[in-house]
């Protein structure tokens, strides 16, 4: 499935260590592990943060290039499906063992266009995961679907392979806009695929839609969204088109051949969409994500909550503690980008990890803050305590004139629940984050200093 939109869905895997969801399938295996970086709340039957992870799998191939996409994807004539399957399975196995997680709480197949993969490949990977870790029977397994590449029969094969959630890249219901975006489907295809998916995964089908498209007006956007809401399932991901350097669309806009709506207009479109979705019963739970009937994406939520995830496949990112190596610290890991090279590496040494960066406590906390505030519920005090036991949210956010200004202006809310953005604040989160990160850093360095002072 094509990038832009789904890029956002967090393709990684999360751990629901302290949520207690996994209790029923939990077995006492964890006693095997002597190394525990950090424990959860300590309830009987829960997993610690490092014992659980989500798994993101990247399928790097596409049939064609979307004009707005700058993601790691390759247009290949002949994909060696067998080799890909073997390598993906092998890398999953290697990294699962390395992480020593006991449970995989969700799987996300992203890309590229993962719906171009063979259902047997998807099945093999799911089986492999289940072999090396617990995979609860109700664990969320999402597949990104490009509306053209799948006939009804293939969707059901994916369903049989173990996929239980579809995310469909509709992007637009306007065919001329689909042409501009370089999509290889029509709105007709999209609606058919959506119908199929809803039948196969009722209540667990999501749609992606892009706004801020060239030439789009407020009226047409509102109408399009209302149309979509009549047919969609319980989950909508709403993305603003971003012009990425190096893409065809970027060049067209730069050359003046196309023009995108003004910043002011896209801000109004975003707020209008939030209002319309809310009116139709969709709860916004993240900057770009809306659900009704609590059909939130478990996989993506884990990502925003700062849980572990293992990235499999070319260019996939991961965040986990490689406990198999005896490590105590979480690492940021990136797999080799080019599929051919990646494949050779996996064949040679079982994985294609290209880069490993150990994260400090501060680094982990920073990521958790940046991601956590994307959620409407924000960061709760309990949630923060798990990520960062050293400094409380109150410690971090008091005493800064600037942060107090944000609170006073009502962009940021801090109370007994935790810290979160207001409705207006969520739209300008990226303008607030640098100040918050500085506060966090300052708290950390003061802490370090005072520790040093006491030791001397």
């Amino acid at each position: 499935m094509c990038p832009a939109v789904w890029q956002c869905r967090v393709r990684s895997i999360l751990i629901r260590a302290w949520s207690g969801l996994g209790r029923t399938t939990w077995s006492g295996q964890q006693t095997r592990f002597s190394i525990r970086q950090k424990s959860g709340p300590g309830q009987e039957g829960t997993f610690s943060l490092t014992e659980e992870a989500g798994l993101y799998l990247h399928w790097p191939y596409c049939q064609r290039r979307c004009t707005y996409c700058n993601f790691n994807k390759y247009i290949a004539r002949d994909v060696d499906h067998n080799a890909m399957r073997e390598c993906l399975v092998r890398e999953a196995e290697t990294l699962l063992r390395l992480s020593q997680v006991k449970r995989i709480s969700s799987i996300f197949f992203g890309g590229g266009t993962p719906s171009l993969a063979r259902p047997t490949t998807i099945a093999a990977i799911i089986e492999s995961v289940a072999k090396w870790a617990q995979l609860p029977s109700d664990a969320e397994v999402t597949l990104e679907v490009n509306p053209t590449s799948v006939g009804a029969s293939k969707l059901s094969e994916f369903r049989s392979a173990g996929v239980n959630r579809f995310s469909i890249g509709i992007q637009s219901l306007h065919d001329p806009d689909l042409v501009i975006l370089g999509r290889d489907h029509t709105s007709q295809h999209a609606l058919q695929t959506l119908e199929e998916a809803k039948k196969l995964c009722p209540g667990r089908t999501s749609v992606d839609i892009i706004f801020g498209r060239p030439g789009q007006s407020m009226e047409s956007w509102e109408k399009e969204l209302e149309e979509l809401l009549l047919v969609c399932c319980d989950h909508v991901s709403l993305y603003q088109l971003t012009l990425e350097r190096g893409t065809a669309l970027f060049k067209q806009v730069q050359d003046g051949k196309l023009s995108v709506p003004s910043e002011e207009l896209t801000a109004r479109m975003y707020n209008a969409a939030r209002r319309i979705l809310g009116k139709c019963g969709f709860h916004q739970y993240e900057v770009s994500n809306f659900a009704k009937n609590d059909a939130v994406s478990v996989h993506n939520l884990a990502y925003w909550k700062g849980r572990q995830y293992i990235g499999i496949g070319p260019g996939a990112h991961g965040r986990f503690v490689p406990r198999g190596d005896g490590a105590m610290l979480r690492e940021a890991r990136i797999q080799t980008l080019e599929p051919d090279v990646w494949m050779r590496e996996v064949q040679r040494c079982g994985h294609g990890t290209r880069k490993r960066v150990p994260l400090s406590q501060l680094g982990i906390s920073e990521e958790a803050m940046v991601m956590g505030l994307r959620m409407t519920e924000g960061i709760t005090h309990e949630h923060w305590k798990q990520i960062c036991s050293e400094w409380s949210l109150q410690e971090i956010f008091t005493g800064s004139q600037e942060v107090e200004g944000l609170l006073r202006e009502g962009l940021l809310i801090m109370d007994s629940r935790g810290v979160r953005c207001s409705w207006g604040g969520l739209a300008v989160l990226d303008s607030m984050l640098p100040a918050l990160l500085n506060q966090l850093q300052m708290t950390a360095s003061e802490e370090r200093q005072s520790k040093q002072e006491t030791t001397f």
Partner: protein
Amino acid sequence: MQVAVSAPGRLIKSSLRGLLDFRVHKIIRRKQSDSDGFYVRHRWMKNAPSVSVFCCRQYSSREKVNLDMSIFPVDKIRNFSIIAHVDHGKSTLADRLLEITGAIATTERNKQVLDKLQVERERGITVKAQTASLFYTHEGQTYLLNLIDTPGHVDFSYEVARSISACQGVLLVVDANEGIQAQTVANFFLAFEAQLTIIPVINKIDLRNADPERVEKQIEKIFDIPKEDCIKISAKLGTNVNQVLQEVVKRIPPPNANPEDPLKALVFDSTFDHYRGVIANVALFGGNVCKGDKIVSAHMGKTYEVNEVGVLRPQEHPTDKLYAGQVGYVIAGMKEVKEAQIGDTFYLQKQPVEPLPGFKPAKPMVFAGIYPVDQSEYNNLRSAVEKLTLNDSSVTVHRDSSPALGAGWRLGFLGLLHMEVFNQRLEQEYNASVIVTAPTVPYKALLASAKLIKEYGEEEVTFVNPTQFPDRSQVLEYLEPMVVGTIITPDEFIGKIMTMCLSRRAVQKNMLYIDDHRVMMKYLFPLNEIVVDFYDHLKSLSSGYASFDYEDAGYQPADLIKLDILLNGKPVEELTTIAHKEKAYAVGKAMCERLKDSIPRQLFEIAIQAALGNKVIARETIKAYRKNVLAKCYGGDITRKMKLLKKQAEGKKKMRRIGNIEVPKDAFINVLKRNDK
């Protein structure tokens, strides 16, 4: 200060260079190799480790022997200088004169010399003027011709005058194609007022478009010099250059100096040598001086013992003595350039004399703040500034600091060119990255009450920094510095130029057709109106054909006001500006616009206002961000997002907070710095 606009073809060279050319006096170059390599002498090269030793072909056998200057009595001496507009061929003529008289070898490499010269000019700002003593035989008699160049950055007329004061005549070089330009006029009047003999030389007659007859007529019309007196030459080809020397001997009178009088030596330039101390260039108006003499500086009142005297050929060449009427150098153990003030008189300790007139300390007229781009560079920049001012006592230095730009200095310069030269030397020779603020001029205020006068110690206070601006209620009137500007332009641009001058508060003094198509206009300008971008405007609206020069014209009452810049109602101290009331709106509006362009959007609306006291006269608004959140999170790739955010977070720490607004340093720089040309 002189500013010149050259013809379009020459505009390829940087405008700065154009500006520098005339005043930064070009070097006198010589060749010297095994026997005649190329050698360029700069003031800054004196500090360089490898100093070439001059070896004059004609006099090479006497190299080690001190010259006996007594063979040149006063009537065999001619002291002259060459004055010209930029690129009219002054240094080429000087080269030719040196060649003819044997000071440098005549070779086929002239072209190469010229090419080198272009390169030298690119960084020629460091070039220090030179004096060259030439030996020239005319009708069987050997004459001592002293070619005296005005020193480095001469920005105001009295400084040119000090060089001229050592001369009895000048060669006024005019380009046969371009004709008289603004600097030609200014130079002529300086020489004329000093009652010097003026020999007009029309150069570049070999050029295809040369029209020497037209130029002759211009000279006749403006300067009232009969056209028969003009010498038509090509310095490049050497055509008629010998005639120039003959005319120097014939027309220019010998100096009025008596060897029987006590020593009276005028210091007309000085340089600093790391090893030998100050080298003072002197013209002897009476007596003689030799090694061992005890001399006194009239200005400092200090006594020194002379270590060495000599002539400049143009390399220092020791002599036994210097005699009345001669020009040369004196080294007398002075440690600082200040000890050999230009315009000072040296006399023998045992025979005090009345000092020569004309000493006037250099008075800075253009001020600019100089700050290191990075505060960690402060110490390096400080030592660079110190080194440069060591050789140029006319730059005034005051430490200054700005909350936005950090610690730096406010430097005072004689004029714009002087400032350009200084800054470029800082950047090029000392590799210092500096922020230079827009230049300002010194204003004055007449205090209103006896009490205030007592408090300030004087009736008239001079202020440069807007923070020192005395309140209206304390002041009878404000005064601003004025200049008389000369513009020479083809007549098709008159309209545009007049409109521009009017918009700069200039008052026309006169206008004269110097030939069928060229007009000379004189305007009285407030100095403040020409210090920033006048020259560039003039150049662009005349397609490069107009030339401009100015001279000091005292102070005039002006309706000055203090303009504050407010961000969401909070004044930004470092942006406070002094402006003329008529210009307040335009200045305020421009500053608001520049700030608007350089302050990023924030979470709050930002009002940028220019205010006179409580009255807001201009406003710009930066709207608040309505949406700034990345839709996607790059599928687990938070690394990229984090990197960007951390960079922004780092950037915030460097911003200056004014109220709830964060102002990047660049915003201040954009508002305060000079416009890039």
